[in-house]
């Protein structure tokens, strides 16, 4: 019973990471119609920036520097390379972002080596909290709470700001939004940077829990794409539902029959694609391209 609770809490933490990455993917797709295979790279860059800052300056600064650095990188990438791929077919976008992911991963490997690394939290956060029958590391709970707060802020951004309006409208009808013209260019940049910053911040914050190596970005990216597909491309709540579902599924399968934990999410995705191709909370109007 205790193991089950542990697994469920673990699934929640893992699921929230997926949610955070998937929300970034979804809002970027909605606004820019860009299928971004390089999104995992943002996570990895955030994690390494966080690692360096935490080890040399302080953990608090890591949480500030990581999202900013990743957002800057994303804007640069957008301007230099991705911008010319917005109007291309999704396959071309997949290919170029896959290439970028490869380049980032290998650059990180050259700089930081292939070994798994981690930084430790300050003493104050290293304790455990007792929740009924189980004790759980305090930092993990704090992390979960932090991600939930961050997601709430993102939701407010989407629902309550003008930029968010463009995101929502873009998911429905990209062309109409383009016709409205004006600040969509600026909005795209902001949304792209925001999506990247979320991944970077989560990367930095999750490193004390999951540790990091150069391949971690891709390792988190693929399940996050599964989350997006399961939840419904372009749907915020789809990403949330899908992320928690996949996180729990993976964690509980790991408890029941560990070798299957990596394959169960693909089974889940295949089922969803067959039975409800637009995803659990996806709108059928969003064209499957």
């Amino acid at each position, binding site marked *: 019973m205790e193991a089950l609770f542990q697994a469920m809490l673990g699934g929640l933490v893992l699921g929230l990471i997926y949610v955070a990455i998937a929300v970034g993917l979804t809002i970027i797709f909605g606004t820019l119609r860009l*299928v971004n295979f390089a999104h995992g790279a943002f996570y990895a860059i955030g994690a390494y920036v966080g690692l360096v800052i935490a080890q040399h300056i302080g953990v608090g600064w890591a949480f500030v520097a990581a999202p900013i650095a990743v957002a800057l990188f994303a804007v640069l990438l957008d301007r230099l*390379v991705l911008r*010319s791929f917005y109007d291309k*077919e*999704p*396959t*071309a976008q*997949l*290919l*170029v972002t*896959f*290439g*970028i992911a*490869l*380049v980032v*991963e*290998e*650059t990180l*490997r*050259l700089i930081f080596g292939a070994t798994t690394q981690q930084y430790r939290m300050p003493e104050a956060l290293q304790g455990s909290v007792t929740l009924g029958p189980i004790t759980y590391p305090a930092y993990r709970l704090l992390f979960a709470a932090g991600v939930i707060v961050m997601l709430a802020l993102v939701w407010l951004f989407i629902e309550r700001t003008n930029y968010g309006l463009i995101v929502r409208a873009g998911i429905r009808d990209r062309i109409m939004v383009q016709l409205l013209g004006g600040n969509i260019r600026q909005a795209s940049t902001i949304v792209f940077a925001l999506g990247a910053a979320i991944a970077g911040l989560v990367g930095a914050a999750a490193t004390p829990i999951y540790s990091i190596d150069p391949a971690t970005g*891709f390792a988190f990216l*693929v399940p996050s*794409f*599964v989350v997006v*597909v399961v939840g419904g*491309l372009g749907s915020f709540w789809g990403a949330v539902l899908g992320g928690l579902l996949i996180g729990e599924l993976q964690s509980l399968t790991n408890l029941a029959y560990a*070798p*299957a934990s*990596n*394959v169960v999410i*693909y*089974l889940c*995705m*295949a089922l969803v*694609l*067959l039975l409800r*191709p637009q995803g659990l909370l996806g709108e059928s109007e969003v064209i*499957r*391209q």
Partner: protein
Amino acid sequence: MTTSSETAPVAPARPGLLAADARFAVLCALGIAVFPFLLHPLGGYSTLATQIAIVSIASIGFNLLLGYAGSLSYGHAMFYGGGGYLAAILLLRVSPQHPNLWLCVIGATVGAAILAIVVGAVTVRLYGIYFALLTLAFAQMVYFIVEQAKDWTNGDDGLQALPNALLPMGPWNIDLTTHLPSIDLGPFGNLGELRLWYIFAGICLLLVLMLSRMLTRSQFGEVLGAIRENEQRSTLIGFNASAYRLAAFAISGALTGFSGALRGMFDGSVPVDSLSIDRSGSFVIYTIVGGVQTLFGPVAGTAVIMFLENVLSARTPAWRLIEGLIFVGVIVFLPRGLSTVLKQQRDKSPRGLFVRSLRLSTEEPDPLLKPSGEGHKGGPMSIIETFKLGKLFGRFAAVRDVDFRVDPGELRAVIGPNGAGKTTFFNLLSGTIAPSSGTVNYKGRDVSRTSGTARVHLGIAKAFQTASLYPDQTVRQNCRLAALARVQGSFALQVFRRSMRLDDVDNLAERAMSRLELTGVADTRAGDLSHGDKKRLDIAIALATQPQILLLDEPVAGMSKDEARKTEALIRKLSTEMTVLVIEHDMEMVMGISDSITVLHQGTVLATGTPAEIRDNPRVIEAYLGGHSEAELTHG
């Protein structure tokens, strides 16, 4: 045939074609024969040369799917690794005493093809990221199964130290590990460094190259290309897009499995890595770097990357970074790949230099355009009829309880204000969407659940509101594709023949063009046509499928007055030979050409009658014009 001198470059006679094939084969064979010796001064790896020849086969298979069917698979490792494992298991389990290479390799190829058909059956309906992710998902499942089936596959360690399989050829059992006779070739090394394996792999590669060339130039390749260019149009001229995709996926998977099996047999081991995501990614890299949609691109890409990897990976830890930079660089700066730098991309020669005699086009009756069953109007049997037809989008009823009947030979206009459900109604008739309720009967037969593609073959064709064409093809080729669908049916694995040879197709296409007065622009790229010509070409495409009922969605929308009148006259002429349904806002045209008119309003039928009846119907005037004068109804 008097035009033979003109047709010669287009449809060369058979001997010439064979000569071209033979020349191609000889040049390829020469290239493959010279390759290891060219590699020698660069570092001299006879093993590498064989591996490149083998892996190139997988890249060619991958390119068939990405380049010609337009689907990016991120799971081809399941076929490559799957082929390797199958071959190794056959080797170890079936006849370990007398390992037979044919058995292992052919068995593995068949196995990979079956896997591809099973996986393809669920994946080919998906596109873009969905297709990529689902293929990746299946590859991960295969990886998982192989890793868990330790008794058969040895789990994470892979199958190592496989016995050497012999190649039975008639009375001989050939040992491919035999070295060639030792002959010194100066700077190009020594012939004796190569094993018989290279010759075997080279012959396999040669055959696969010839197969790939044949496939892409065949009728099958032509239709596959059409589906990639415009799937919506392709299904509505009568091609079964899913079947074509599935066939391409199966062939691609089989070739990749073949390659994986050869590699396993050559290396004498099958690592579990051969099933990994990285492996799948490598085929993407090889093919893109070399050049998609080219015959030699995948081979060139495989050779360049594998060679660089071999040379650089030992010297610098940055090899994978260099590989990634090459890949991104090629995508951004050379989207068509390295191989296109070497030679100027040959212009696709416009297919038709020949213009057929226009004698066919004029007034005489046309035997290829079947007159509709009962020529006289008001016969006992309707050609198309709907009962209580309805379509819901969410909670919105776009079409509700529509009872509709058209007699053979009739020209019926469907009019109504914007949002009345006219286009949805046409989509229900053509089968692009399925009804939520009610039925569609065609010649007394319920076709409500029949696909759009099948309905084209029954004789229902449609021209779109926004012309749906193959913009990169000539006008003639646009019509030929539609005619081809009529002549060959919805699917044909016709890989040996080129469609150019089919006279029926040519005749149908030429006639469709002349009907719509497009013969003058027959060799123009469809994308370069004027708006009016595009709209007429769309009708010509529908016509080339030999329909008995033609659905025209706003055929003159956006045309100038003169063009509209010209098109109107063409439609009127068509209506003498078939049933025509037309949605149109141009009231002058509607009142001028229709035998009868149906008015849709808010998804339901408001009125049906002759133009005069409709013009005087007060409910129509009320609904349609919101109370405007009759003059506006008459003069648009």
